[in-house]
């Protein structure tokens, strides 16, 4: 009986806590945080190290990061069930942490009217740029409701001011500079965020792009997401210099803790200001980590140890970091965050449901979208009698 009383009291106490949590006036509306200083290259000063995060911002970042994580975990699951085919490069290990922190931090510092382009690990960015979980997942499962109607798949997702999703390592970098050229040409004060990995950083076309971007002062933020491994090759085995933030040589650079969403945000803000003031390109290296393998077909342990992965997961997880900050500064309650978790889970479940039940694209659309703004044309099928139709 005594025990029962204690447990009842505990429940009551807990609900009392819940009740007080619902009074928003009890929460701190914002707090100041000390963040890691960035390493600088050809810059006199760097981003602020004392930053303010509001309660609303914190909750939003949390929600977005959880959404991306859950979405990628669900994709992981669907891939293992063979419902998703081909390549599936999860922004999860990366999305988990960095990209999670990276994508959120970057988007928090630019406008939707700015532009962004990345490589093939693009699900997270598709989301932060405006794609819905539903249409992203339906694209992964190759259905007609997919963001690219099932025509593109994991690596080729597009939405307004987001240029993919690019399958060829490094090719997105000149493209991003080209988008920036268009911004400058049109005088619209927009900029382009152009992402690539530590593996891509050794591509020649990136150095060609650095040169032209600097020469023409293009408003492009080059961002190297250094997750320490290019597929199965560690950075030490691939690059003579692993100071990726310095490899733009004549382009100013920053090395940023990519695990901390506030670090990323502050650095991206700094970079955006630099671009918008007409100073030309800037380079940011985001130090992150990739929990999972390179892609779904890679268990990710033949070239590194499980201990390494575990260590990073336990010490540097961005969502954990954000959660700690919110809770220890009384900016949110455990229940509130749990509520967000529940909502996110539901959103992902609904999206997965949609993605697995939406019909596949109709065969009549096989040959569509070859040309834009073009009269219909005939496309040869697999044999001379198969004359297929293509419309724009």
């Amino acid at each position, binding site marked *: 009986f005594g025990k029962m009383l204690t447990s009842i009291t505990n429940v009551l106490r807990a609900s009392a806590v819940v009740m007080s949590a619902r009074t928003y006036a009890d929460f701190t509306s914002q707090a100041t945080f000390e963040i890691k200083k960035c390493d600088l290259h050809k810059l006199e000063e760097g981003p602020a190290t004392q930053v303010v995060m509001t309660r609303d911002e914190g909750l939003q970042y949390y929600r977005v990061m959880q959404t991306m994580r859950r979405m990628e975990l669900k994709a992981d699951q669907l891939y293992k069930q063979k419902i998703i085919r081909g390549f599936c490069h999860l922004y999860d290990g990366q999305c988990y942490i960095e990209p999670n922190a990276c994508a959120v931090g970057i988007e928090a510092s630019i406008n939707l009217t700015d*532009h962004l*382009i990345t490589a093939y690990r693009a699900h997270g960015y598709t989301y932060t740029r405006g794609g819905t979980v539903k249409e992203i997942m339906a694209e992964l499962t190759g259905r007609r409701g997919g963001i*690219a*109607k*099932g*025509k*593109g798949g994991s690596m*080729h997702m*597009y*939405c307004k001011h987001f*240029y*993919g999703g*690019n*399958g*060829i390592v490094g*090719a997105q*970098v*000149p*493209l*991003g*500079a*080209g*988008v*920036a*050229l*268009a*911004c400058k*040409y*049109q005088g619209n004060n927009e900029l*382009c965020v152009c992402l690539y990995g530590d593996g891509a950083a050794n591509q*020649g*076309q990136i150095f*060609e*792009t650095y*040169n*032209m971007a600097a*020469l*023409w002062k293009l408003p492009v933020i080059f961002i190297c997401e250094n997750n320490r491994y290019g597929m199965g090759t560690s950075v030490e085995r691939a690059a003579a210099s692993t100071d990726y933030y310095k490899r733009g040589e004549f382009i100013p650079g920053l090395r940023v803790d990519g695990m901390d969403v506030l670090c990323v945000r502050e650095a991206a803000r700094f970079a955006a200001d630099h671009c918008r003031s007409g100073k030309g390109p800037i380079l940011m290296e985001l130090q992150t980590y990739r929990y999972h393998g390179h892609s779904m077909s890679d268990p990710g342990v033949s070239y590194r140890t499980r201990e390494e992965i575990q260590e990073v997961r336990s010490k540097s997880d961005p969502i954990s970091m954000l959660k700690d900050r919110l809770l220890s500064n009384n900016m949110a309650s455990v229940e509130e965050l749990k509520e967000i978790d529940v909502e996110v889970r539901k959103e992902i479940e609904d999206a997965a449901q949609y993605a697995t039940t939406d019909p596949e694209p109709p065969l009549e659309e096989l040959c*569509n*979208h*070859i*040309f*834009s*703004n*073009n009269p219909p*044309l005939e*496309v040869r099928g697999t044999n*001379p009698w198969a004359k297929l139709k293509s419309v*724009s």
Partner: protein
Amino acid sequence: MPLNINGTLLRKQHRNHVTVRDALNQAMDEELERDERVFLMGEEVAQYDGAYKVSRGLWKKYGDKRIIDTPISEMGFAGIAVGAAMAGLRPICEFMTFNFSMQAIDQVINSAAKTYYMSAGLQPVPIVFRGPNGASAGVAAQHSQCFAAWYAHCPGLKVVSPWNSEDAKGLLKSAIRDDNPVVFLENELMYGVPFEMSEDSQSKDFTIPIGKAKIERQGNHVTLVSHSRFVGHCLDAAAVLAKEGIECEVINLRTIRPMDVESIETSVMKTNHLVTVEGGWPQFGVGAEICARVMEGSAFNFLDAPVTRVTGVDIPMPYAKILEDHSLPQVKDIIFSVKKTLNV
């Protein structure tokens, strides 16, 4: 009575001789003026007036913003041009020769050609890649390759190959106005050749549709199909053959992809004999494609002999003049092939 290039009577005495170079220049000038999103980028296009002077005067008129000199970075600047097209501009990306486009070919194919399809229509890429293609004179193997077959292989691209000045102007204007990636294959040896241009072509809205071939010469005995410089060779061969009573119908493809197979078939159904002429290598080439298409289509049953292909010799281009001359189809090769096909 004077005839114009279409073989029809000239109404006015319009002695309007324009070189292919100037026709291309006019096309770009007019389109730059018409649409401020159009710009030209490439090596030496601005202050040098163009490596082959095709863009002469444009930088002076339009300035640094619209006519952009690039460093020697084909892959980089082709990618930049494609990115600019994705973000709403209408770039003309010049390759000093298409040989150098091989360095950038990933951007042309994977970033430009395929994107509209991969994005299910969300992301068009309105870009023109232009420059001289094929053999020049004495520039040897690395500078003489014809890329018509390579680019025409790929869905998502349009591939255009003008012959004369009218073609050059009308097709380039169409290419620039097209919302899709167009590979525009010029020919260095044609740049300085003057042609009469019709009165229509003086209009700033004069365009020639992409995807439509032109009958340059009517005939009943054999169909000659060609593109670019070799159209001229075909007409020369036709003139010689006419003296022997053989009337050739000469078709100028104008566009390689999409190819106007219908025009070829209509002609073959009349002449019953087909000879293709190109500067490129024989294997997997333009002529090979024409053979396959004719076999698969309605004209096959009208053929009285197998299709003959006249092509460049299947070797890298040599340097010495005598060797180079014998590496490409000459008028006598076309005449010989026609007679063999006709069994005369």
